[in-house]
């Protein structure tokens, strides 16, 4: 806008608006997140959602505040000992940001699941913290059916764990770190061809059958070709020609062959893209439209992206070149729009169902589209469908983070059997080691896992005594909050689907289980 009157909200959120834009912020402000259990891990996650301005949150927690709770939780004070934890935490979290509205429900999630599971349907995302297995499996099933994303987090001693469950999460703006440019040098569109014909470009086409230089030898030869174009002065010394130097430096990256990336190809071939109905989300409708473009007007290529990197040139020539790409991108997007319009009509949806802006954004990001599909908890836990290969191959290295996953599963078993976690009190540590080992073995047996879980880990997990040290909770708090923001804004790419953090070694791993 020409006159930018900055509201105080814009100023407050300035540093994050530069990452996810006003539209990302809007999505955040329209979201309602549910946190189950206001332990340190939970409140740290919520803090990192309240600060950036999540629309609203609801804490579900049936526990009373204990002295231990206050010790590691920044959002509980000793004056709240004995009071309901959901309420106590809500007050102090709410105080962080007046733009956010906080609610609490003094109830255990199990009770809510018993009496009114549809309570959870209203949320953009449910975050379950420090939950026993039976609870998170029940919740997982309800949320899976309802299509509500579910993020499970736990801090157990020096170990952090996250599990994301979302059936299908589409991302248009993945913001890749290292994206190749879309220059179409190998398949120049008509307008680009006409534009460069003004310049005196040599005929490399004839020598290499219109192929781009492929290997190092060919690229070197190409660089020599460019070098030969550098003017020399009277003494035969090459002039200092920055633009030629820049070209030589960029040979590797500028000469990537134009094609539809495999990720985008997969999206085009997906069932959701093929079969558009009146229920189809706009992501798939537009994807189908782009696919139609690729197969017709695009001649096998995506709509032109329209952006070019800065390069050494005088202003006029650069702007003209930039406009060639911009205009083509606009033209291509308009054609995609026509396809989308026809598609919408064919399934009886009004043309306003997708906006011009949406389609333009989609086209610009066509090479970076991502779809994340997480397996359900049921699939992860069933003896028939659990990911045996992944677990077994990771455990070839006995200190892989996978052992931490197996230990957490064993801890859950222990809790099921003994209604408590191992080693909470000093006197329990020794005897619980053997009890926990039995749980580990029964787990491995049930899943026919022929892997070695070292005794050291069993001892260590007893030692933890279900402690939730603040610094580990805080690490998870930051990690989980950002994943939640990715789910809500549909920007950047969420993990898929199990994340383990080891604070002893400061290492982490992501598994797809």
């Amino acid at each position, binding site marked *: 806008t020409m006159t*930018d009157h*900055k509201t105080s909200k814009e100023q*407050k*959120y*300035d*540093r*994050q608006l*530069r*990452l996810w834009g006003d539209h990302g912020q809007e999505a955040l402000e329209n979201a309602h997140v549910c946190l189950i259990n206001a332990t*340190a891990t939970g409140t740290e996650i919520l*803090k*990192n959602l309240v600060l*950036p*301005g999540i629309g609203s949150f609801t804490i579900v927690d049936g526990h009373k505040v*204990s*002295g*231990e709770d*206050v*010790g*590691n939780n*920044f959002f509980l*004070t*000793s004056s709240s*000992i004995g009071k309901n934890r959901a309420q106590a935490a809500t*007050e*102090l979290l709410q105080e*962080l940001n007046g733009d956010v509205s906080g609610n609490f429900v003094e109830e255990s999630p199990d009770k809510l699941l018993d009496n009114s599971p549809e309570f959870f349907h209203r949320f953009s995302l449910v975050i379950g913290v420090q939950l026993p297995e039976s609870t998170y499996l029940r919740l997982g099933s309800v949320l899976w059916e309802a299509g509500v994303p579910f993020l499970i987090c736990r801090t157990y*001693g020096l170990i952090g764990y996250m599990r994301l469950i979302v059936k299908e999460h589409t991302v248009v703006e993945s*913001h890749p770190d290292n994206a190749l440019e879309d220059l179409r040098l190998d398949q120049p569109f008509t307008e680009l061809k006409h534009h460069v014909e003004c310049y005196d470009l040599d005929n490399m086409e004839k020598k290499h059958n219109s192929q781009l230089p492929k290997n190092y030898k060919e690229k070197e030869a190409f660089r020599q070709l460019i070098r030969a174009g550098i003017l020399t002065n009277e003494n035969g010394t090459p002039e200092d020609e920055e633009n030629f130097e820049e070209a030589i430096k960029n040979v590797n990256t500028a000469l990537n062959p134009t094609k539809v990336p495999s990720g985008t190809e997969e999206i085009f071939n997906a069932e959701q893209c093929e079969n558009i109905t009146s229920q189809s989300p706009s992501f798939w409708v537009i994807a189908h439209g782009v696919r139609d473009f690729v197969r017709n007007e695009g001649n096998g290529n995506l709509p032109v992206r329209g952006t070019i990197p*800065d*390069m050494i*040139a005088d*202003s006029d020539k650069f*702007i003209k070149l*930039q406009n060639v790409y911009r205009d083509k991108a606009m033209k291509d997007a308009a054609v995609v729009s026509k396809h989308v319009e026809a598609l919408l009509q064919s399934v009886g949806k009004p043309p306003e169902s997708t906006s011009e802006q949406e389609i333009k954004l989609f086209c610009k990001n066509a090479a970076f589209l991502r779809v994340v599909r997480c397996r359900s908890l049921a699939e992860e836990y069933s003896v028939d469908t659990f990911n045996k290969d992944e677990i077994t191959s990771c455990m070839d290295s006995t200190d892989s983070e996978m052992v931490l996953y197996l230990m957490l599963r064993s801890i859950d078993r222990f809790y099921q059997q003994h209604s408590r976690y191992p080693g909470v009190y*000093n006197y329990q540590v020794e005897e619980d080691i053997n009890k926990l080992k039995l749980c580990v073995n029964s787990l491995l047996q049930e899943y026919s896992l022929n892997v070695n879980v070292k*005794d050291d880990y069993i*001892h260590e997990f007893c*030692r*933890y005594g279900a*402690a939730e*040290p*603040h*610094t580990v909770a*805080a*690490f998870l708090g*930051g*990690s989980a*909050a*950002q994943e939640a*923001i990715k789910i809500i804004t549909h920007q*950047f*790419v*969420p993990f*898929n689907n199990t994340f383990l953090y080891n604070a*002893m070694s*400061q*290492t*982490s791993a*992501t598994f797809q289980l």
Partner: protein
Amino acid sequence: MLRAGCSMAVEGCGIGDWEGRWSHVQKFLERTGPFTHPDFEPSEETLQFLLETCKILVIGAGGLGCELLKNLALSGFRHIHVVDMDIIDLSNLNRQFLFRSKDVGRPKADVAAEFINQCVPGCNVVPHFKKIQDFDASFYRQFHIIVCGLDSIIARRWINGMLLSLLSYEDGVLDPSSIIPLIDGGTEGFKGNARVILPGMTACIDCTLELYPPQITFPMCTIASMPRLPEHCIEYVRVLQWPKDKPFGDAVGLDGDNPEHVQWVFQESLKRAAEFNITGVTYRLTQGVVKRIIPAVASTNAVIAAACATELFKIATSAYIPLNNYLVFNDVDGLYTYTFEAELKDKCSACSQLPQKLQFPPSAKLQEVLEYLTENASLQMKSPAITATLEGKNKTLYLQTVASIEERTRPNLCKTLKELGLADGQELAVADVTTPQTVLFKLNFTSETCSIKHQSRQF
């Protein structure tokens, strides 16, 4: 007030404590375990050490600093000093959670300390609304561990140099009691890193200077006559037009925090852009370029500060072997961490204790030496002041940071080293903001035919 601290003494606990307060921490201090540090011995005294004796310095009370103070306070640390030279700005509030809108304009260190002291009973954070350079060795020497949440490489190098200067050697052997561990965290958008430095023993900040990406600067010819991007137009107004137009008065410099200044730059940048048919100049972009704004969110700061605090806890308690020694984090696509051991650089100008060499022919101009000091990737000095002992007297050859001395010594830049009276093997003392102590260089004259060409282009 919501957070009225509770100072109810519970039987068996100290003042301000309650039953179970430190139970999450105690499990790591009072129980044996298979992965503990070889030096670790379970004891109830370690917690007492944290609560009563251990002294920590937190440098920076911003995005990382607020998180660090909270993390340390909830891990048992009670004697904490915090240094920050900044005051609170509205744009801090999306992540610096110890501040509220009513605090805007107040010193960060003061408000942060107040908040923690009020909310974590027993914790005593001492604030210092100062620059780190305002303190000397005697101040830094009192701390067991120092943790940084800085936003400047210069500041990092400075504190790095300060801790190196505290090291004492006996017969060439480093005295371990003179080592103050330095934990350093940094974040930018969705990326961050945390590292553990044991001065004199492990890689220091300067050992890995090449890891820091060079700042983006645009060539002057682009800005002056060939702009192509909206950023070029903004830089033109900032660098060339403002000093010429002096829109707010003769001696008034451009202040990125003054919305009127930024608005002026924005309007002029639009005009400049219109001349060249460049689109994309916005107020937000203008402010970003003028202030060199780095995007920031709460989550990344939370992660990195947490990792730093975990390491600090390990070092203070010997509970576990600390990170050795560098962690990188990125959550743009899933979550990615990478841990590696940054290596000591053999000839590090900060920590190697080897005399640094300068190799130039006697016909080289002082200007060339200056350029080398600023442009060499391992030195990256900002505005070095060069002095030498000539005829028994300490002579300043060139100094930039004081206008009158700069003017007086400027002619020396065009003189050759020989003309300045410098001899082969001569020692030059160089002072710079990047280090608290002068760096000594030994000047070696090379033969006349060998010349070192300096690449001075930055893009």
